[in-house]
């Protein structure tokens, strides 16, 4: 009985402290979640944080009721870890979504850059970016539009270029943007040299990303080779069990 009362008191205090705890926990992960939302172009971080706290902490009611029948330290640990896991799960899935998006951008950005290089043959950087927007991958369009606007306002500023997708913190993209800046702002002779370098580097980058993606897929399917070995282990175990059973029967 005492155990039950202590549990209920603790859980009710916890529930009463919810507004304070929710804010505290949200603050702890606010920076990373905000960064993820920026990459995925989602809105309303606070609502998402509040919802995940509320959903995960609904489990406390199950704990509150089941503590009437189930006792023991292990059960408390199990309930606490379940609440913790259900609180963390949305963050983990959000992070994996961000990783996927970042990987896709890393793969498709050199593809876009190649398209831009072809347009650069007959256009300035600003015009080439403008022309490339309708044909660019959908998740780049919004960023490209703001890059175009920045370049229209301040074409000679390096910051106008490097601000493009800076939240992704990908050095390759930043390098490509600096190339574009140099290409646009240096003299004719140097520009063509820069351009050739940019083409060569993009080819290398494009190929690396393609080969990396293919290697990754091969590595995953390589594990299929383990299945027959697991099967033969199963046969071995069954044979050993069979021998043991026979020996026991004879005794």
């Amino acid at each position, binding site marked *: 009985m005492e155990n039950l009362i202590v549990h209920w008191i603790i859980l009710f205090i916890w529930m009463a402290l919810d507004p304070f705890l929710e804010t505290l926990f949200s603050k702890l992960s606010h920076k990373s979640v905000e960064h993820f939302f920026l990459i995925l172009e989602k809105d309303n971080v606070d609502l998402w944080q509040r919802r995940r706290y509320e959903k995960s902490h609904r489990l406390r009611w199950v704990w509150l009721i089941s503590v009437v029948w189930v006792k023991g330290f292990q059960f408390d640990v199990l309930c606490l870890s379940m609440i913790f896991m259900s609180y963390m799960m949305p963050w983990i899935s959000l992070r994996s979504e961000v990783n996927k998006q970042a990987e896709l951008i890393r793969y498709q950005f050199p593809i876009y850059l190649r398209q831009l290089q072809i347009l650069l043959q007959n256009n300035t950087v600003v015009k080439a970016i403008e022309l490339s927007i309708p044909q660019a991958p959908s998740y780049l369009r919004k960023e490209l539009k703001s890059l175009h606007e920045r370049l229209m306002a301040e074409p000679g500023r390096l910051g106008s270029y490097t601000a493009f997708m800076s939240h992704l913190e990908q050095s390759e993209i930043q390098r490509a943007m600096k190339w574009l800046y140099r290409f646009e702002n240096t003299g004719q002779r140097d520009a063509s040299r820069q351009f050739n370098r940019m083409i060569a580097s993009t080819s290398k980058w494009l190929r690396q990303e393609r080969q990396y993606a*293919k290697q990754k897929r*091969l590595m995953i*399917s390589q594990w299929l080779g383990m299945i027959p*070995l697991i099967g033969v282990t*199963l046969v071995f175990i069954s044979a050993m069990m069979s021998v043991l059973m026979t020996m026991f029967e004879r005794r």
Partner: protein
Amino acid sequence: MRAKGWAWFIRHGALSFGCAFIFYALSSLLGLGSFYLFIVTSGAFGLGIWISITEAKTKKHEEEFYMMVDFFQQVLALFKHHPKIYFSFTESINLTKGDLKEALEKWIDDLQEGRSLNDSARSFLNAYPHFVIGNLIHLMVAVELFGTHDYGLSLDIIQDDIEEWAEDTILYKQMEKQQRNRIVLLSLFSLIIAYFSQSMLKKTGLQTQMELTDVALLIFLMMIEITIGVVQHLLSSQWIERSEEIWRT
């Protein structure tokens, strides 16, 4: 129709019966009970059909890929000397067949009917949305519509991209095939190990729980069949990378 059906039956049937026979022989060697033997043989028959279908699919993808690369290289070479889409396509269409030929014929028909170049290019790109093809098509359309002299370097870039694309894809497919062979070899080794363990066990005379061993052997053989089926499925996947098809709508 009947001849086609027979051809289909002979092509897929031969491999299925062959596969079923191999697994029947292996199961008999391992001393599997008759009911389990029937399950394994039926599974192997299905696997044979699956292997035959996936092999045909792989062959088709391979042919289509080579044909597509050849066609675009030819178009590019022709366009360099005479920058007209209609001319480049009509001169190179003989290199194609199947879906690519149909898509090209549709584009040529559209051009003959006077439909807008951009619209017909868009419907072609929906069928072939790879970025290299997209870059080539967009450049060709731009040159034809607006006219320019500085497109040589762009065509060179695209030509390099096509070559690198083909090189990487072929290399990857070869590696996939090697991997499939490695997995088949591993399965064979595990079968040999299982055979020796079973024959040694029989010699000791200690094995009486036949049911348990039979179930374990059934699971083992089915695992091998499923693994080979999955590997074949992976091998028969498209040669064109979906993540590079950025103009898919």
